[in-house]
């Protein structure tokens, strides 16, 4: 048995642009324990609800995260609509689903790029992000923003996508799919890539459930839990099954995300073929009163919003539990027993977004 050393990992690390700090306890090159500390970017955004009225708060919540910005906004307005018992028009539901799925695609592409970067595959990283640009262009064309969209509002949407643009999106999706195919093949088939991902950081089925893992981390371990199955927005009318892989290692988690990209593209096509015409917003009167806890599925996993309103235009409490928070415990489970060189990879496979974890 070797001597024990403690090596600090992060909060500044070349692989991880997120301020996650781990104290790694090492025996020679093997990790035997890890203690996380977060809280470097705690902004207290949740507290702002007491000073911003519930319409304005939407823009603040969207800025919790730069990647899942749309889904954060969507979750927030859904929660408020649930409290106020507002039923939004069908077209708005479909449009929200389209944007949410586009968000998921671009988030997963971003992650694939970072993953390639984590094992030093720079050119693959660049190519993933090149494809992602196309999705950001769709976003800019339809919402006006590349990262922060500001299209959701309590009671519907600010912007509509006209049918011509929707058709154009379909042809764009085809191009994206064609460009993506050779890239995802690298993740799936390449020998050196598999060398770095197969059998690394195994999380078993039971561990994934017990530790409260979320999203691809959970589904990579064989648990078919996907909040989209709750049928919020338009998901109830779409045909899809949660994507599951059994192995629970880095390779399985990569596969889940890759297959989810194709699934998302398919869901967008389904949405566009089914989208009804009509209004995109309803009038909202009065202030919310009550509480609601909603669960929706983000690119990184299940995210939970809880809102408590008191009948004034300021909410009492708004709580966001982001998927990364749920995935920290599984990460701590994966780390012991791995090599020091695999730590960045493992930290990445949960797709950490620390800034949104701390709000």
């Amino acid at each position, binding site marked *: 048995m070797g001597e024990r050393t403690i090596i600090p990992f992060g909060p500044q690390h070349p692989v991880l642009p997120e301020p996650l700090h781990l104290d790694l306890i090492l025996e020679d090159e093997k990790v035997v324990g890890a203690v996380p500390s977060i809280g470097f970017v705690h902004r207290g955004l949740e507290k702002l609800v007491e000073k*911003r*009225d519930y*319409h*304005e*708060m939407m*823009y*603040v919540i969207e*800025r919790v995260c730069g990647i899942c910005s749309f889904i954060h906004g969507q979750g927030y307005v859904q929660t408020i609509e649930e409290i106020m018992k507002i039923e939004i028009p069908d077209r708005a539901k479909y449009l929200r689903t389209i944007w949410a799925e586009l968000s998921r695609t671009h988030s997963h592409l971003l992650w694939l790029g970072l993953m390639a970067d984590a094992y030093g595959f720079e*050119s*693959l990283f660049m*190519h993933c992000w*090149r494809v992602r*640009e196309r999705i950001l262009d769709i976003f*800019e*064309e*339809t*919402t*006006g*923003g590349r990262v*922060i969209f*500001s299209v959701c509002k309590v009671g519907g949407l*600010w*912007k509509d996508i006209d049918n011509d643009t929707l058709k154009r999106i379909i042809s764009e999706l085809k191009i994206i799919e064609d460009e993506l195919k*050779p*890239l995802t*093949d*690298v993740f799936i*088939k*390449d*020998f*050196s890539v*598999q060398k770095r991902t197969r059998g690394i950081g195994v999380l078993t089925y039971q561990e994934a459930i017990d530790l409260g893992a979320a999203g691809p981390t959970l589904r990579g371990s064989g648990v078919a839990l996907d909040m989209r199955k709750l049928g919020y927005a338009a998901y109830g009318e779409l045909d899809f099954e949660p994507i599951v892989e059994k192995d629970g290692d880095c390779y399985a988690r990569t596969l889940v995300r890759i297959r989810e990209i194709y699934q998302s593209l398919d869901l967008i096509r389904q949405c566009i073929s089914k989208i009804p015409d009509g209004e995109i917003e309803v009038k909202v009167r009065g202030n919310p009163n009550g509480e609601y806890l909603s669960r929706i599925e983000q690119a990184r996993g299940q995210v939970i919003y809880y809102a408590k309103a008191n009948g004034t235009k300021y909410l009492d409490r708004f709580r966001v539990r982001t998927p990364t928070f749920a995935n920290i415990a599984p990460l701590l489970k994966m780390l012991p027993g791995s090599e020091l060189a695999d730590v960045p990879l493992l930290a990445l496979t949960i797709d950490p977004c620390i800034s949104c974890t701390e709000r």
Partner: protein
Amino acid sequence: MAFNVIGKTIMKSLFGKPATAMYPIIKNEFYPNTRGNIENAIEQCNFCGLCSRRCPTGAIEVSKPKRKWEIDRTRCIVCNFCVHVCAKKSLSTQRHYTAPMTDKAKRIYTLYGEAEKKDA
């Protein structure tokens, strides 16, 4: 298992056109929807101050007696909310982003209504 799966893609990018554009020689085309920065058609504004009260970041300052409308460009997050709430429809979102600035004082952009002198 296969080796060098990315080879074909590499060949393509070696002989193909670059994916990036030569900025600033080639400027980016913005979409009609792009949210760049907030402008005020000051002759329509009645200085009601609604935009400043509803702005999530408190970037706008309006003074009715001075007939002044002022925006802090670096605080504004271009969320478009002020454009939606303005009853006079005097605010609009332009397609171009705020130009980079070397002087911090330039971030404040002030407009005066007609009763006073025109611009600051």
